[in-house]
């Protein structure tokens, strides 16, 4: 019997190969389309696009600095606050709570990650922003002007964005950290207790060192999420194209300026500048995610 060219196996193999080709091709397509459509802007502004602080659609002058600043401030602000809380909650789930309670909290954290961004945004507008506004008012009225935490209390702005990013990214960080903590060998922990150490000493000397890479990696992946987060931030950041000077200032992230202006943008250069911002965001989050994944994978081996 001669092997037929159109046998079921060959067709199946071809279908599998084509689907994988689609996946890899899609990624290339995304990169090439972004590059192609941001070319007018790249050619016009060159590298200075990144450190130009002016965004003036009327005079066709475009610079990404205000949005890069907004993105970095909100993301890093959220991530720095996130680290201790994510660590504490993971420790609570794995070491401190009864197993059943830990499981429930674990599930709740997973659900927190499933809530759509736009719903966080709506909650942000109607619940969070008024609270932040009051807080800002109290700070401005009662404290002497400290740099960075002063200015008109709009409510919307960097501070609200940091809080909402914190709430939205913490589940990702916890889900990775708690998985890594599960891998700490029981005999190491028991050994520490046998030597008479308290739980906290055990956590400090065994769990934290053992999970160091996983914690750093998980935090980096959460940072990747925060950088690209769009809707919720767009709804609470206040949409200003100026470089923010204090935490109370309205601003824009790369993602939020695209969400706000893309549909209204007229003129090749304007649209292409926005697409170049998209390319920039793509590359930044690609870099951060790659670093995070390398660190996390290292721990798993």
């Amino acid at each position, binding site marked *: 019997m001669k092997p037929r060219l159109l046998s079921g196996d060959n067709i199946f193999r071809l279908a599998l190969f084509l689907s*994988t080709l689609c*996946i890899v091709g*899609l990624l290339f397509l995304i990169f090439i*389309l972004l590059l192609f459509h941001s070319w007018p802007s790249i050619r016009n502004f060159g590298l200075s696009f990144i450190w130009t602080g002016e965004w003036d659609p009327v005079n066709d002058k475009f610079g990404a600095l205000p949005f890069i600043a907004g993105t970095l401030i909100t993301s890093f602000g959220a991530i720095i606050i996130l680290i201790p809380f994510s660590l504490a909650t993971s420790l609570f789930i794995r070491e401190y709570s009864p197993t059943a309670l830990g499981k429930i909290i674990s*599930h709740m954290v997973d659900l927190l990650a499933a809530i759509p961004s736009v719903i966080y945004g*709506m909650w942000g507008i109607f619940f969070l922003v008024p609270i932040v506004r009051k807080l800002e008012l109290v700070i401005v009225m009662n404290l002497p002007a400290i740099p960075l935490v002063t200015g008109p209390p709009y409510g919307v702005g960097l501070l609200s964005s940091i809080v909402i990013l914190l709430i939205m990214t913490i589940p990702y960080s916890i889900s990775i950290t708690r998985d890594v903590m599960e891998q700490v060998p029981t005999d190491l922990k028991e050994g520490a207790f046998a030597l008479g150490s308290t739980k906290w*000493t055990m956590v400090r000397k065994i769990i934290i060192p053992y999970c160091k890479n996983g914690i750093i990696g998980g935090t980096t992946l959460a940072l990747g999420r925060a950088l690209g987060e*769009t809707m919720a931030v767009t709804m609470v950041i206040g949409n200003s194209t100026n470089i923010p000077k204090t935490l109370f200032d309205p601003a824009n992230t790369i*993602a939020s300026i695209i969400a706000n202006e893309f*549909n209204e943008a007229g003129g090749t250069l304007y649209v292409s500048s926005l697409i170049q911002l998209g390319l920039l965001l793509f590359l930044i989050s690609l870099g951060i995610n790659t670093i995070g994944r390398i660190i996390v994978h290292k721990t798993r081996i």
Partner: protein
Amino acid sequence: MKMNLQKISDRIATAAIYIMALVTVLPLFLVVGYIVFYGFKHLSFELITRNPAPVGEEGGGVLNGIVGSGIILMISMAIGIPIGLLGGLYLADSPDGKWKHIIRLSVEILQGIPSIVIGIIGYILIVLPMHRFSAVAGGVALSMIMLPIIVVSTEEVLRMVPVELREAGIALGMPRWRVNLFVVLRTGLGGVISGILLSLSRVAGETAPLLFTALGSQFFSFKLDRPIAALPLQIFNYSISPYPEWHSLGFAASFLLLIGILAINIITRTVIERMNYKNG
């Protein structure tokens, strides 16, 4: 004395961890509670039977958004499920190699692309050539988010299928494609479907990719090549509008979306956990 100090720091650390864990879990109650409270208050039968009322008029619903979201999700499933399933089958079936490594990497990178960038791609790919915002563009954009999630979940589930089953099929002289489709995929079908449902619940709430593709609409429409309403877009537009009637509609729409997504999540996660329990 040193012992004492250790005990004190242990107490303090324990208290701190309890408090911080509580503070972390609190927002879930705050967000869900707030949306459920205000959403439930504005819930009405009209919500799912009528289209939005003009500004200033009381009442109206989000029927067009529910139907629009359904249409967009159908399109994205029609693209994302076949490619995602085949990709997952490939990763679960083939031996390690360079091509497999490249695919894994691509899937991981695709998963990390910010959703607003996917929106731009949908715009460039479909809206620019068609010269029009459309339901198709929205569906294509969402399928790009769905695809990598389905690949990953399918591969994970199919890897749990015992290798003996695969070997038994091959030993019986079944062609490889039949082993893959009727033994491996069949065994893991429950898990695969759960993965697809989870990916669906993830993209059902996506808003950013629809902004420049589906655009949204005030009207009821089945046309695939025209702008179409979607539930998440309505929530966005209503909540940033200055009209209290629209805010109420937004809360009610959020309630529907939230309940739907949480329900899918809870059900599928329970199913997956049961399966893991049985297998392990």
